[in-house]
């Protein structure tokens, strides 16, 4: 079922298991070298679903670091994006989409599988 239409910020398409975070500061809350969130969850090869970003402007470099160490997520889906994340995704070539409806965000949980095509059509395959 086509759940929502997202806005492509950095183009791409992906299908994968999600890791969900409400608010994220890439600097301080993501370890690029380990590919993990600071609560220990791995984001490598996952779809990172974020309500909103916060925190340091160094965040763009941390996203670049995820790519540098081969720990990048398949893609990032946000309710609302922010230039810090946009720049990080652009220089790292990590697909980024925004416009995830809040009610959809609220219903998602870690392990749900979703796909986003290049036009931003979001489908939830398993949840």
């Amino acid at each position, binding site marked *: 079922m086509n759940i929502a239409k997202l806005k492509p*910020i*950095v183009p791409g398409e992906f299908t994968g298991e999600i890791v969900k975070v409400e*608010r994220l*500061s890439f*600097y*301080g*809350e993501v370890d*690029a*070298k380990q590919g993990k969130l*600071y609560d220990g969850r791995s984001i490598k090869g996952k779809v990172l679903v974020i309500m*909103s*970003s*916060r*925190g*340091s*402007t*160094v*965040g*763009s*470099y941390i996203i*670049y*670091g995820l*790519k*540098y*160490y081969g720990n990048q997520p398949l893609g990032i889906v946000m309710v609302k*994006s*922010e*230039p*810090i*994340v*946009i*720049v*990080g995704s*652009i*220089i*790292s*070539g990590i697909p980024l989409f925004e416009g995830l409806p809040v009610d959809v965000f609220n219903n998602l949980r870690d392990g749900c599988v979703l796909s986003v095509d290049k036009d931003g059509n979001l489908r939830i395959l398993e949840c």
Partner: protein
Amino acid sequence: MKELEFQVNEALILTKEEQEILSGKHGEAKAKALEVIIRVAESLDVRRLVRIKHAHISGVSYGTIGEPGLAFIKELSSLGAKVSVPSSLNPIGFDESNPFDQGVLYITQDFYRGQMEILENLKKMGIDLLLTCTPYYTTIFRKYDLKSGDHVAWGESSAVAYANSFLGLRTNREGGPLALMAAIAGRTYYYGMHIPKNRVPRVKYVVDFNDLGYNEVTLSLVAEYIANIHEDESPPLLYLDPRNINETTKREIAATLGAAGNIAMIAIPGITKEADQADIQKTIMVKDNMIMERYKELVQDQNIDPDYYFIGCPHASEEELKMLSKIKRGNKLIITLSRDVYSRRRDLVQNLVNKGATVLRSTCLIVSNLRSKNLMIATNSYKAYFYLTRKGVNVSLIDIKSIVKRLGG
């Protein structure tokens, strides 16, 4: 850096000079930098770019950006990148005057090498090695003739909020690499805080405490509360008596907004020009009881003796050095500040060092490396609390006046 493909969106209008830059007429590095800015502009449906007068670049410490950041900067530098507007840098991972002997901080030879390589490459681009997160406490304003209303591209989330809110400068929260690209291209995307109508507050937060006092810590907890609930795109209006706000409070509020949230500006009546143009649609009362839980959680218990007291996140001001110079025992005190303030007030610094304080230039506890994480640190900085606790350090908050008292002043 990935090879960038792009096509200029019809909605985005470039000047003749920008088209020339893009074609490579002004060098490969400048073309690359502008390409990235244009891609951001397109993703945000921006119509044009804006020339900037200054750039302040974050993401400088090897401790924060590491090898990936170094690789990114080196690649730009190898293309012959040069900044086209006056530009300055955020703090690095150690005090250059004495990198390997800094008490609570510890860096390895590898860290030192990585940091020096970052600095050399940025210096080659023509960037001022200001090495502070408080560029507004330095001479750059006079040096570069920065004035209210000027467009700039600043990284460093705390300085961004300070610049928009208290200096009238116009900047978005630029990611570290974007601030660097903007410095090279001399422009950024015309969006967000650059546009006057976006700077007009619509939601008012009225601070009304009964029991708590007004200081940088309690008002940072208000800022955290606002950062968590503010959804409007416009800057929040913080309504309180301006007499309850001093320089330290302004800086710490700005730093909290940038750490706990993604707010680039806050308007305070009597301080921020845009507060007078407010078009208030919603008013929210912020009472003591709304922050009391966080207050009890974070504020330093009077009976606990921390390992260190830390002042200087963001970098300390001259006024704070004056306040702190009243202390009697400084052996537990760590102060971080800019070289600029340090050299201007060597007298106060010497006084504090004589009392046992550790005074570090050009770095701070959150961008360096701690010798041990098994520490209890008490600080007046919510931002330091936010990032140090994420490194596993035990941090509590205490206002600077109370620190001075505890240390015998």
